[in-house]
């Protein structure tokens, strides 16, 4: 991950921009999308009108009180807008960076994918799907595309933040190029795969900016619940007016509850805290994905990540270090283990594969056999070939070979040698443990076997245990045989594995899980992963992967780190938890607000109801104002929480609920009692009301 994408939560530029925007967003056409805040805005307009009216015609309440209530209601809306603008602002800064790399550039259009074809220079915005362009070192790639010819190194820092260039070539899994990235060496012929406005960068910009942000399904459902609560409270408060009219008439005492007070009560009761922060929470969730260098193609995908039940992980690179390593030399009877190690090292000296390197290192570590220079030995390296399935070295008339057991067996037989009886049992033993046996022979004499083992990444076992506690099942996908797969699976602590996996088998596995009602997440990079990615509910494509994989996925990991899935799941859960806890907090707050406002509103009619003023607030007016102020301020105080998200701990569901209920439920009941009392004390000390 790069520093560039990290941002401070409190950046003054961000805050000032957000402050301006939060006033612009008072536009009712904008607010109507958020039912709760829209009601608050109507309340603000109403109280403002009352204030203006009372300047000309006394209404029975001090004009200053109506003004104060009105102002704080406006603040409530503005604070909620501010939260949203803050969340958006963080994405916008990111979008600016991206936009600078999208600027219009000149593209070398060619009619056919031929290096010598006639070049026409056009603007990149004129490029359409299926056009061919040629780019050379120093050029910026004009649009997304697929390399059809050439090999080149490309600097993709504009989108990944990673400045080390990557290789892009035609065919295979590294053929996709992204518009806005810069070609550092050589040349490429590219077939354009995106129309203007639909490129990867365009999509990224609109995602991070939240411009095209649509409400996610869960957000819509929560919005409905909040709207329902708002209507209930609207009716509960509006009917206070006739009720109090009746009561005043019935006992000929007091005055009916005023519109200002009813509006104040309404705004305090409707779930403004969560209503005001809801969109900020959603944008911030997306933003946290960006911070983790993951671009989600939709908010829906982020939300789904929290629901994942099954995680499909490729073995190589995700669970294991990617390559097998030698861990032991096992000589056949009558051979010294050092002789075996020595021969194995000699055979591997020129072998630059990680397996080969690990043999050299193991021989050195275990038996102190120093690495020798293959040139001074006058040795000839025999590289691995698919035909012989062996590699080795020829020197001083010696032929040393290492390779798969059956390949070496054939080689020894051809030389007229015999295969010692114990080789078979050693090989079987190693295979049974899930490791790979590599037989070493010198001429017609078999020396022994090297054990190559998959090395499980450090700490991965703990992460899987963590996932299990989150309720997520991990499935390892590997092309290995079932025996090897089982051994690695046991080592890594995954719940299940799919051995000898083909693209069809992967797709089938995903479908099976989905048919059982589970949500499946997977990562992939190759074109052959594309069908499975398209089928998975949360599909993270590696940025280094092919265009097909990126198209099929609903997220792109710019770091191309397959373990990122775990973080993605956590971010998804965090998003949902933040919504849930703030909803609980918001509703729990109402208890205290009732105890502040109801006695204040009714004490004129029934003085006995003053008993309900348990907080002993100074005067009815200061009680009402304190509740309104608290209601507005709590939004501001919770902005950091909404943007950062409530911390997710991988506990069981019950433990999580208990903790969150204690903090946000019980806390939500208690905090406003303290807060309203404190504000009331401040108001009464200042003798405002």
């Amino acid at each position, binding site marked *: 991950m790069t520093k560039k994408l990290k941002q401070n939560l409190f950046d003054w530029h961000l805050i000032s921009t957000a402050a301006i925007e939060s006033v612009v967003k008072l536009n009712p056409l904008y607010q109507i999308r958020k039912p709760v805040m829209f009601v608050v805005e109507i309340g603000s307009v109403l109280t403002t009108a009352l204030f203006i009216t009372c300047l000309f015609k006394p209404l029975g309440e001090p004009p200053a009180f109506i003004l104060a209530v009105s102002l704080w209601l406006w603040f409530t809306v503005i604070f909620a807008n501010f939260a949203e603008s803050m969340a958006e602002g963080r994405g916008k800064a990111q979008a600016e960076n991206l936009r600078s790399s999208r600027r219009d550039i000149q593209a070398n259009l060619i009619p056919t994918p031929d290096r010598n074809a006639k070049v026409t220079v056009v603007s990149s915005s004129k490029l359409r799907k299926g056009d061919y362009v040629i780019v050379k070192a120093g050029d910026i790639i004009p649009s997304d595309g697929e390399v059809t010819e050439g090999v080149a190194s490309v600097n993709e820092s504009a989108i990944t933040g990673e400045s080390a260039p990557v290789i892009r070539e035609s065919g295979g899994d590294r053929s996709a190029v992204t518009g806005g990235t810069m070609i550092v060496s050589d040349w490429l012929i590219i077939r354009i795969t995106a129309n203007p406005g639909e490129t990867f960068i365009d999509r990224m910009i609109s995602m991070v900016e939240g411009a095209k942000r649509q409400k996610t*399904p*869960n957000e*819509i*459902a*929560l919005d*409905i*619940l909040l709207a*329902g609560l708002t209507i*209930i409270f609207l*009716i*509960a408060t*509006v*009917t*206070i007016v*006739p*009720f*109090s*009219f*009746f*009561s005043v008439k*019935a*006992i000929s005492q007091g005055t009916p509850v005023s519109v200002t007070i009813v509006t104040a009560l309404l705004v305090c009761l409707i779930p403004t805290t969560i209503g005001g922060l809801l969109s900020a929470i959603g944008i911030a969730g997306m933003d946290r994905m960006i911070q983790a260098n993951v671009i989600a193609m939709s908010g829906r995908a982020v*939300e789904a990540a*929290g*629901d994942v*039940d099954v995680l499909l992980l490729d073995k190589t690179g995700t669970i294991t270090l990617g390559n097998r390593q030698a861990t032991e030399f096992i000589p056949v009877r009558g051979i010294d283990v050092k002789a075996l190690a020595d021969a194995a090292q000699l055979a591997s000296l020129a072998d630059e594969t990680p397996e080969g390197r690990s043999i050299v290192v193991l021989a050195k570590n275990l038996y102190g056999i120093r690495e020798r220079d293959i040139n001074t030995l006058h040795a000839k390296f025999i590289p691995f070939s698919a035909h012989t399935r062996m590699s080795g070295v020829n020197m001083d008339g010696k032929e040393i070979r290492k390779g798969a057991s059956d390949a070496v067996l054939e080689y020894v037989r051809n030389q007229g040698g015999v295969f010692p009886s114990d080789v078979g049992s050693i090989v079987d033993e190693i295979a049974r443990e899930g490791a790979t046996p590599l037989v070493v022979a010198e001429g017609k004499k078999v020396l022994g076997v090297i054990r190559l083992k998959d090395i499980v990444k450090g700490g991965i076992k703990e992460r899987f245990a963590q996932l299990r*506690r*989150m*309720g*997520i099942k991990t499935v390892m996908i590997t092309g290995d045989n079932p025996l090897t797969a089982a051994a690695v699976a046991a080592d890594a602590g995954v719940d299940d594995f799919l051995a000898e996996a083909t693209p069809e088998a992967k797709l089938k596995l995903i479908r099976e899980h989905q048919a059982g*009602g*589970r949500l499946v997440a997977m990562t992939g990079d190759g074109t052959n992963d594309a069908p499975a990615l398209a089928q998975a509910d949360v599909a993270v494509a590696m940025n280094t992967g092919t265009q097909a994989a990126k198209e099929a996925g609903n997220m792109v990991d710019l770091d191309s780190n397959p373990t990122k899935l775990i973080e993605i799941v956590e971010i*998804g*859960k*965090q998003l*949902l*938890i933040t*919504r*849930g*806890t703030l*909803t*609980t907090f918001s*509703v*729990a707050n*109402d*208890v205290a607000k*009732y105890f502040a406002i*109801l006695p204040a509103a*009714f004490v004129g*009619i*029934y*003085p*006995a*109801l003053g008993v*309900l003023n348990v907080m002993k607030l100074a005067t009815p007016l200061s009680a009402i104002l304190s509740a309104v102020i608290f209601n507005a301020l709590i939004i501001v105080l919770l902005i950091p929480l909404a943007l950062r998200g409530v911390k997710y701990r991988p506990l*069981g569901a*019950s433990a*999580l*609920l208990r903790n969150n*209920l204690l903090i946000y439920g019980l806390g939500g009941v208690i905090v406003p009692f303290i807060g309203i009392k404190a504000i009331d004390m401040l108001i009464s000390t200042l003798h405002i009301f």
Partner: protein
Amino acid sequence: MTGSGLFQIGLYFAVLVVLIKPLGSYMAKVYEGTPNLLTPILRPVEKLLYRIFGVHSDDEMPWRTYTASVLVFNLLGAIVVYLLQRFQQSLPLNPQGFPAVSWDSSFNTAVSFITNTNWQGYGGESTMSYLTQMMGLGVQNFLSAATAMAVLIALIRGFVRRNAQTIGNFWVDFTRSILYILLPLSIVFTVVLVSQGVVQNFKPYRTASLMQTVSYDKPVVDSQGNTVKDASGKDKTEPAVMKEQQIPFGPAASQIAIKQLGTNGGGFFNVNSAHPFENPTPLSNFLESLAILLIAAALCYTFGKMAGDTRQGWALLAAMFIILIPLLIFCYYSETIDAPYVKNLGAAVTSDGNMEGKEVRIGVANSALWATVTTAASNGSVNAMHDSFSPLGGLIPLFLMQLGEIIFGGVGSGLYGMIVFAIISVFVAGLMVGRTPEYLGKKIESFEMKMSSLVILIPAVCVLLGTAIAVIAKDGVAGIANPGPHGFSEILYAFSSCANNNGSAFAGLSANTLFYNIVLGIVMLLGRFGVIVPVLAIAGSLAGKKHVPVGSGTLPTHTPLFVVFLIGIIIIVGALTFLPSLSLGPIAEHLTAIK
């Protein structure tokens, strides 16, 4: 509070709890169509009924068809009850020769009985012929209860079925509810009640001489039946002496059995189960109060059983008990405390507590018990006058109704309301554990939230808006018997009762007027069908979803923690909605009195 009173309450709940499992699992078998105790006898009858009415019992209905069946059937029921009242003077079994009931009262009563509310603006023994009582009201007692039970079963199927288009067959669920559950229980209960002395005959009323003549001031009425005012504007009265009384009869026992079991509550006589012919002995009182909660409680077990996890049913039942019992104790306590306003009642105060409006033979504990369970369940029958309870004692029945009649509630309707609250609780709690919420393996999404919000919104809005209209309207205020906050409570109580289909009356309010008959009638319709339609919509939507298997990340919904959360949501939503109105009613009355 006395030891004996608390013991009787304890015994009541002990017997209730023992009966839940056997009855609940029997009902599960009935609805699942598996062989049960009564199959050998009733299966042929069931098949015959289907053949007569042309029901194809294997035809499954999508939720819209199911809903349409419910609505059309209830509409027809309403028309029949309406016509029976309007033409009862020309129909048989009318020994008292009662005239036709007015159109507005007929409308109100028809709506009241098809909605399982059994709000009674009329006095039964002075208005309704035996035919109207039996064929209209008595029959609707069965039909309205069975309707709600069918709707509940459809909702449960929504959870059980996977990727299904249909939620069952209304006619089958409905027929089984009556045939296997309501009828057998009612028959047994009727026989028991008759053994206790509840009347069951078709005799005309009998006149008996009073042992003690009663002198009183009788209001003077003009030819139109309106009271005449004297010069000072008060009602004009003249002295009168009463020497004899009329003793009403009728087929009461059979109707009382179903009115209790089916949470209908509409009494055969005006004073309901305070009447000695409806509720003559301690045993009849115990059994009648037991019958109020019996089916509603057992259905929770049925729910768990059918959903494949009885713990889910017990959890909802636990939430109901945990809300009910403290409120009951509080109500009982409020009726026994030595508050200042109790002193004003004079002779009605005994060592037992406030006996005003209560039957001496029933006592405070059993009156409080009945008042609480009859409003917890949407029964509404009474054995004491709630209007005469202390302000806080009367607050409890009022609040229990305002909670939406989900603490046991009506048979079927209470549990489907409770399940909707569970859906809302799961939605919020589910988010807090970091998953999009699911209940019983079904994802709760925006459609379910929309419908659930309606279920909670409609009755609450009906109560508040209805009360608001009544306290402003001249015709509304005219019905009030008491001044001040108590008068407000009377109106609030009437609307809380009707909108939540309880039907219990605070008395006091003169509700048999054009205004109240119409407004309360509309409120009853909205409170019933405004809930049933969204509930069936939820059933249809859930049935079409796939099942999400339980994992360790799934929020468990049978744990004490979830029960606590559910209770919290119910109480907070209920309290926040009604606290302002309760403050101006019973709370103000109580606090003003003790000041």
